[in-house]
């Protein structure tokens, strides 16, 4: 199991890009942190999710 935004999910082995494709996140509006480090945008496809990972997806909204 791993955690994304605090929710426990069984996604080990899937890539970050595959996970995101099945969600409503707009890839142009997000930043992804994995175990305390930012995941470079170019590496979403090759970043494999692993048991024990703690991931936070920040989805920006407009206004400032």
């Amino acid at each position, binding site marked *: 199991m791993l955690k994304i935004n605090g929710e426990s999910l069984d996604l080990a082995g899937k890539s970050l890009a595959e996970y995101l494709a099945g969600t409503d996140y707009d890839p*142009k509006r997000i*930043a992804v*942190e994995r175990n305390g480090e*930012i995941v470079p*945008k170019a590496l979403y496809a090759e970043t494999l999710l692993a048991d024990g990972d703690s991931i936070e997806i920040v989805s*920006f*909204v*407009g*206004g*400032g």
Partner: protein
Amino acid sequence: MQLALEARHGKALQQRFSQAVVAVCGLGGLGSNIAIALARAGLGKLILIDFDRVDITNLHRQQYKASQIGLYKTEALAENLKEISPYIQLECHSERITEENLEELLRGAEIICEAFDDAEAKAMLTNAVLERLPDAYLVAASGMAGLGSGNAIRSRRITKRFYLCGDGHSQVEEGSGLFAPRVMLCGAQQALLVLRLLAGLEEA
């Protein structure tokens, strides 16, 4: 002026503030308020970046005056900041920040405030700074529209170098605009985080 600030902040802290270089990216409701708060605290140098000019539709939440309509926001804000803190160093760039020019524009900044309006621009700057400027801190904002409780505007640490302020979800949409006090609260959270980082009060 320096002595007055030292008397209030303590000499060591004020010296740290007066040596700091902080960039403010976007000089709208967030950025204009952040810059004013940091200038009042006696920061040494601000890098101010915005491609836009002051418009009548900005006055309800941004720190400009009717007499400044038509000026570049960088110029107008520089005028206002110099009246608050005459000795502050300002580096102004009246251009759009892109993935191409970002490293050059932000050179020397130890803390970078993301204060854009557009969600995609916010994400672009966040990813680029965290991927390409490994020594800088980023203080970003998301979610401050509408008239929801000000208590929902909070700040949190996402990574060691990435802090985020706002309620996380209130976006600008039809019927839900931006109101000065709520945007100011978010900008104030960002400015306070900058001072806390400089003071060494945030978790390393």
